[in-house]
């Protein structure tokens, strides 16, 4: 039989942790299929294009950040809402048990089947100086990424937002067009932003998750064994989260050794940021999904159940 070749598209840079897990998945699929499938990682730079091609079956598999999926599933922005989560435990519990089943339905309606969840990490603030309080960034020129969450976060802090595509972020920082921005450390740590804006402030204001998806038409054509092979090839999300957290430690040490600063925030300091953003959360929800969104209801229920559970 002819060998079918699959591409697993990802935005992650070659050599990064998430690119490595994609390589790992490709290897497992290729070997596990006994030569029937040849899977390879495909590096892409335009996530919107990636989503479009996955839905239409031009690409077979892809690892999509939650920001990317908002272009077809607007309510996916809810998972990246600033100050949605109180803790990692809450985030993981609610995401895995309450959000995922709803997400699976939303994705299927767009021709995508979720193979597994992934993790990019907490989004934190980076800055040219030590921006520990909201007063430090008030009026400052900051890079706002093209997402509703970024808009509400920086808008609530009364900054002077500058919308820049990722490719213009680094020159913008070097020229002083912007003085701060937000990125998970997995991304920030591998850019020269570490030199031009060396203060990394652990605001942990939002979380960036990802999903590994397969085109639905292709999925339906697979045998049950092949479907199992694909799902098993993906590193389980609990393991991915652990890897992301573990990977961050040596990377942050290397960053500090090169003259970078990592600022941990106390509970009060974090609350000072949250206090300004939280009043705008309702507006954010209304804007990205409307109050009747099934995903929003699931998140609310999950958060209540988590509070009740941990209250016991």
């Amino acid at each position: 039989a002819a060998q079918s070749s699959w591409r697993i598209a990802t935005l992650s840079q070659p050599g990064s942790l998430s690119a490595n897990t994609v390589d790992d998945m490709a290897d497992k699929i290729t070997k596990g299929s006994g030569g029937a499938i040849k899977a390879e990682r495909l590096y892409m730079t335009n996530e919107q294009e990636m989503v479009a091609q996955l839905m239409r079956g031009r690409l077979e598999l892809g690892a999509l950040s939650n920001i990317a999926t908002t272009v077809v599933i607007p309510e996916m922005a809810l998972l990246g809402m600033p100050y949605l989560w109180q803790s990692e435990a809450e985030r993981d519990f609610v995401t895995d048990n309450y959000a995922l089943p709803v997400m699976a339905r939303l994705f299927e309606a767009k021709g995508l089947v979720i193979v597994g969840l992934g993790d990019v990490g907490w989004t934190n603030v980076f800055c040219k100086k030590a921006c520990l309080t909201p007063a430090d960034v008030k009026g400052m020129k900051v890079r706002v990424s093209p997402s509703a969450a970024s808009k509400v976060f920086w808008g609530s802090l009364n900054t002077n937002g500058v919308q820049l595509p990722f490719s213009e972020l680094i020159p913008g920082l070097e020229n002083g067009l912007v003085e701060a921005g937000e990125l998970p450390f997995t991304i920030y740590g591998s850019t020269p932003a570490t030199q031009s804006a060396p203060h990394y402030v652990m605001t942990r204001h939002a979380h960036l998750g990802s999903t590994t998806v397969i085109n639905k038409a292709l999925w339906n054509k697979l045998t049950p064994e092949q479907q199992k092979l694909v799902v098993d090839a993906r590193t389980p999300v609990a393991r991915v989260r652990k890897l992301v957290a573990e990977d961050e430690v040596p990377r942050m040490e290397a960053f500090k050794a090169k003259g970078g600063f990592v600022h941990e925030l106390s509970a009060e300091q974090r609350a000072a940021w949250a206090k300004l953003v939280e009043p705008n959360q309702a507006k954010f929800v209304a804007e990205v999904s409307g109050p009747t969104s099934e995903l929003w209801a699931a998140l609310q229920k999950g958060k209540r159940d988590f509070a009740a559970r941990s209250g016991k």
Partner: protein
Amino acid sequence: METTKLVLKGLRYLEAFICVVAFSIVVIALMSDVIGREVFGHGVFGAQRVAVWATAVVGLVGFALVTSEAGHLRPQFADRWLPRAAEPGLNRVADVASALICVFLGYYAVLFVRSSFELGERGVGIPIELWPLQIILPWMFLSSAVRHLSFAVFPALKPLPKTEH
């Protein structure tokens, strides 16, 4: 022929108008972002996106405008391969062929816009549905097809090529 001429003229004015307006939007969007940011301490969210889309409108709707002026680049080295006597007839055949190609591409552009509509694809940052904007894709090809067909039927309507090489 007079009716066709009138229709083509109207279409050309419409497309020229769209291009000028869209180009103005590009400039106004980007300038208001810079001025807002530097003078009022507050930029315009989504200005770049709007400018990108307006650029696409200029470049793609403009495609049909250029067709109406016979302004597309055309390699001429193969012209010598056929006898000169075939020329007048050949030009009409050429327009029929161009019209067919444009209808072919326009048909697939319609399919693309339909799938975008069905999938509900939206913009990054500005979450509006994209399909109304993407109509420029079928437009550029189908509007060009109308021109080529008219030129084939009424060769007198075809302007002298501007940029043949």
